[in-house]
């Protein structure tokens, strides 16, 4: 199976930094901002974004900015796919009502996960606005969903697989550094 790296650690760091700047710029500062990562890899990405924002904006505590939003219970394929592990949902102490919530995920593909995330969010409260930040947009959308902040647009074949590896979640055997990989496709 063919496998190639499309983003290395350095590029990922640059993309996160750029998205952090974009978010601040669009929100006109860090006020009322909440970053919710979608498990698994959206969670460390949200934390990295928050840390970058805290580095740019003095007085911001990255911890208070971030949370995680598990979407398992809101998926539309619970019946068909294998049994899914449920991850924790944690919301910053200030809640999400009237906040600008930025959903953070690693790869945007069909859009179904984000559809589920919007449902999950609605059960938790009523944000003023919801935005979406992803590290990679690989296309092939099945829902009318687009990302507001994209690390890299990556044209892919539907048969290819895109894997994001981060040190927080994947630092097991053979891990050499953060990267985005494409596997498969035409031989």
């Amino acid at each position, binding site marked *: 199976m063919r496998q190639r790296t499309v983003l290395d650690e350095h590029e990922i760091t640059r993309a996160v930094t750029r998205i952090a700047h974009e978010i601040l710029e669009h929100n006109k500062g860090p006020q009322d901002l909440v970053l919710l990562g979608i498990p698994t890899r959206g969670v460390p990405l949200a934390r990295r974004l928050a840390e970058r924002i805290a580095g740019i904006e003095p007085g911001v505590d990255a911890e208070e900015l971030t949370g995680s939003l598990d979407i398992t*219970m*809101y998926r539309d394929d619970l019946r*068909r*796919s294998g049994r899914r592990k*449920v991850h*924790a949902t944690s919301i910053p102490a200030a809640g999400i009502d009237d906040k600008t919530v930025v959903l953070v995920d690693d790869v945007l593909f069909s859009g179904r996960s984000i559809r589920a995330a919007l449902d999950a969010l609605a*059960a*938790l409260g009523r944000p003023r606005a919801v935005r979406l930040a992803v590290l990679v947009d690989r296309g092939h959308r099945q829902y009318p969903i687009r990302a507001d902040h994209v690390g890299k647009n990556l044209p892919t074949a539907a048969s290819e697989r895109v894997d994001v590896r981060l040190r927080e979640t994947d630092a097991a055997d053979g891990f050499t550094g953060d990267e985005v990989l494409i596997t498969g496709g035409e031989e």
Partner: protein
Amino acid sequence: MALTSLLSASDLDRRTAVELLDLAEEMATVAGREVKKLPALRGRTVVNLFFEDSTRTRISFEAAAKRLSADVINFAAKGSSVSKGESLQDTAQTLAAMGVDGVVVRHPGSGAPHRLAQAGWLEAPIINAGDGTHEHPTQALLDAFTLRRVLHGEPASGAAGTGADGKDLAGATVMIVGDVLHSRVARSNVRTLHTLGASVVLVAPATLLPWGVESWPCQVRYDLDEAIAEFAPDAVMMLRIQLERMHQAFFPNAREYTRLWGLSAARLHALPADAWVMHPGPMNRGVEISAAAADSPRALVLDQVANGVAVRMATLYHLLTGEDSH
């Protein structure tokens, strides 16, 4: 372990049991949300098939299913033998024809849920909600959940990896006192607590212990005072005693039972100061448990009830989602 039905606590290995308890912690957070409901079982139908009245258990399962957005049908079946009406087979096949996705069964006869799951009458997952004097596995799970929370702490606002998440009950000593012979709660608890690494001590008169109890993964004592002194348990679980039993010579009378095996105020004080008091309910105050014990700050009786819904949500989610093999 691929769990297709929950019939007995022995269906659960340590990993699956801990997974269910962790899942129940997530489910428990739903009660604190703006919308106390998850869409996970939307469009799916759960039947509460109760051949024996138990409003508490039925309501707990009903709330669990509804919080997961399932449609719930309550089916109070009368009688259990062919002479008394519809047979178990006909009932099962009726439910299968209606296309139910999960069946919660309460039955006065031991093994009826096994029969439903294994006779091939219907494909849906079966959850044993108490069968005769056999088992009541979700009660054991909620007891384990309750104990794990008080021994290891609740996870802080759902942050994974903190509090009790992922932990079992290794090192804990739990004493189960009373009518073990007729108790499905005791059978399930001995197994589940053992699976989760706890030491279990049964304390009862020999008449209320099953023949062959020495083959169970637990210790057995007849004298409650000596057992408390010997084991200094982390929790005592008092079982409900049915007073009719004294007419069947299981014990002389309620007075003697209470004196020897009741959790009196004096015995409560004899327990370690940090020991917890549990009871699956409904309690016979003044018989197996004194008011002092039932109302003490160490009593977990209401926690057990409250945790029942989360544990049953976890069980339903676990059995009704995933592989479409059902």
